[in-house]
């Protein structure tokens, strides 16, 4: 409504622009809150500020982190992907099955590595293809993504259960676990993988035509289509990317559980939605940053570890996560109203 006629000089913009882009107000606030949480727990909880608890946090965080990324990217486009856990488990099962059926015993490390790479390829192709197929269904049927991904979830999960008879499948070569649980300078490899993937996703979302289009589709898909963006192609890629991230999560899950099952991490599904929203992803689409999401993951992990050390149950942690989200959502709504 209000027309901006002040014509303020843009020099402020020149100075603060780049800084603001990397650390927008919300992300800075979140970083402060995370820091405060970390300091608070360190002061209150004995044993919180230690290498051991740091390392355990860095082991636990990546799995949920990658799944939250897989959820967040469709959300930025105004969609949702309820099939992420099912796809991740399907990838895990496919990779274990490949490895369990290849004759590994008695072969050298080089051969085993090759086999692992083959398994990884299988998982990656499967995850990306399932995601892409989901996107294709959304584009073709124009049914709400909640429903399409709900259907895909049932089919993928059902197929996994059917083929495995609901059992846990193991049989990974020990090398896989060794790599998966290795550390570099005390930093778990899983955490490094998460940081690299998150970093790449940040660049993709902020600095590629594809990434920028995702958020534009999320705020007004029709206007974006009119702006000569191939909305359908981008949508398919969004879900394919989400499927790829599920594959990444599956790799870490394999290392952590040393097995795969159709039922792992099922309770994470709705938690990833919470994590994404907490990380500043607009559930209606259009907004969201990887930096915010990573900080939200750290925050959730700090809460989980802190309360764990205090002897609280996992359920209490889950309840607190939910309450934090409600609090943040309400605070944002109030701020918006005031503006």
């Amino acid at each position: 409504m209000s027309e901006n006629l002040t014509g303020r000089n843009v020099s402020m913009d020149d100075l603060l622009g780049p800084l603001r882009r990397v650390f927008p107000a919300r992300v800075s606030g979140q970083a402060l809150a995370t820091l405060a949480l970390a300091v608070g727990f360190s002061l209150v909880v004995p044993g919180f500020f230690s290498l051991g608890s740091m390392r355990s946090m860095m082991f636990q965080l990546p799995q949920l982190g990658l799944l939250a990324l897989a959820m967040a990217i469709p959300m930025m486009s105004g969609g949702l992907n309820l099939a992420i856990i099912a796809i991740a488990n399907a990838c895990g099962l496919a990779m274990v099955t490949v490895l369990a059926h290849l004759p590994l015993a008695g072969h050298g490390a080089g051969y085993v590595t090759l086999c692992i790479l083959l398994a990884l390829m299988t998982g990656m192709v499967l995850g990306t293809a399932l995601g892409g197929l989901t996107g294709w269904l959304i584009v073709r049927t124009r049914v709400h993504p909640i429903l399409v991904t709900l259907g895909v979830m049932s089919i993928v999960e059902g197929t996994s259960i059917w083929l495995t008879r609901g059992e846990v499948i193991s049989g990974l070569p020990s090398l896989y676990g060794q790599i998966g649980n290795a550390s570099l300078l005390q930093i778990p490899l899983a955490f490094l993988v998460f940081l690299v993937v998150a970093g790449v996703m940040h660049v993709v979302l902020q600095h590629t035509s594809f990434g920028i289009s995702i958020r534009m589709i999320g705020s007004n898909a029709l206007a974006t289509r009119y702006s000569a963006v191939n909305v359908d192609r981008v949508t398919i890629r969004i879900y394919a990317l989400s499927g790829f991230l599920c594959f990444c999560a599956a790799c870490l899950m394999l290392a952590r559980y040393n097995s795969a099952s159709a039922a792992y991490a099922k309770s994470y599904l709705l938690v990833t939605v919470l994590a994404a929203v907490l990380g500043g992803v607009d559930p209606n689409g259009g907004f969201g940053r990887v930096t915010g999401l990573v900080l939200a993951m750290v925050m959730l992990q700090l809460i989980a570890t802190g309360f764990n050390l205090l002897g609280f149950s996992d359920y209490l942690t889950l309840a607190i996560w939910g309450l934090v989200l409600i609090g943040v959502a309400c605070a944002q709504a109030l701020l918006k109203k005031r503006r």
Partner: protein
Amino acid sequence: MTAAVFLELRNVFKTFGNFQALRGIDWDVREGEIHCLVGENGCGKSTLIKAVSGVHAPDAGGEMRIAGQEILSFDPMRARALGIQVVFQDLALFPNLSVAENIAFDANLGRGFSPKAAIRRKARETLDRLGHDLPLDLPVDSLSIAERQIVAIARGLAGSARLIFMDEPTASLTRAEVRRLLDLVRKLSAAGIAVVFVSHRLDEVSAIAERITVMRDGRMVGTYPAYALDQRTLIHLMTGIEIASHHVARDCTSRDVVLETRHLSRRGEYDDVSLCLHEGEVLGLTGLLGAGRTELALSLFGMTKPDSGALIVHGQERRFRNNQDALAAGLAYVSEDRLNLGINAEQSIVDNLDIAVLPGLANRFGLISDASRTQLARDWVARLNIKLSSVEDAINTLSGGNQQRVILARWLASHPKILILDSPTVGVDIKNKEGIYALIRELSDQGVGILVISDEMIELFATCDRILHMRNGRIAGDYNPSLITEQALEERIYA
């Protein structure tokens, strides 16, 4: 002899945050009169309607009387109880409910059991009074726009209306439908029901109105008898600006043809359209809404596929698979529906400005730097003289005129050879309108072929070198604006 005053406003203000939408309104509507309310977009017409229908409470201090009774507290229910009904521009119907329930929804207010039989009876009665027949049990979303409008009017009438506001009721109707609507309005007026008609089409306004009220910047300019106004005076009153003289049409037909269609047809949309657009020419395309203008433009821009005929761009026949192909061929299209098909409202000006040219900003690794985006945005903001404080602000913080300039910049950044502008100044205030006309002329001087789709004669005559008239999907006439007057052309369009 004048009828008694039904609605009377004295010194009414309405403030949103620090924006004053209504500034001391003094106004009255008489019983049974047909009264037109005109003004530019954003002048406060809609706010005024919402204030007198109880949707927005006016600021304290003003005075409102309905049928001589002073109104102290007000809400939509009370407004309707007093006989004030509104047919909103978006009709505000319930698409999932039946015709009968939409018409007699008031019977569903409160608690208890829903009186099904009474609702049907009331709906039937009301439609009979209007002389219309609609299937009572059909959901409203299966009706045509004109039928929906009847339902919306019937809803107003069913609530024992004494005053009905109609907000831009003709915007999406065909001429025949408009005529029927105007007949209906006269019928209502004859039955003692006052109608306030909000419209910007002077021909309609002067056809039925007894009095015309002009609003500007949240204030009343004045109320005039309808016969005392012509379009130029009206525009002067609405905007406070005298429209500059006509642009002199140039003959561009000897220049290269940049865009040509031959017998282009698409079933149900447009039929056998052959036209030529020359380099640096501004070609107007006018006609009633629904004449197929926008549909044709969408096919030119590759968003729909013609069933038959040829589309020739720069001498080459093209079949666009989508609008990316069209963009690559040097076309650009600015939609008429800025809100839904133009802007990404909450996103920044940068995002809105470079969305169509993003791939071109990428370096050889496919990466786009923030600096290059900001630079592009700043360049265009400066070139089109867009007033803003930061290119990082959301586009919806800008006025309509500046938003439209950003959208124009979005397409100009792709350096189009052919620019299709669909109603380019809808919702743009008059100062920015003039600016956009100047920009169109400047672009044509640089050799861009421009197709201007519009139903505003002033706009067409201010920019075009040639004007095509479309009717029922066909080209019905080709006019040189120097050889025909605005009135003559308008008469042909609405004939």
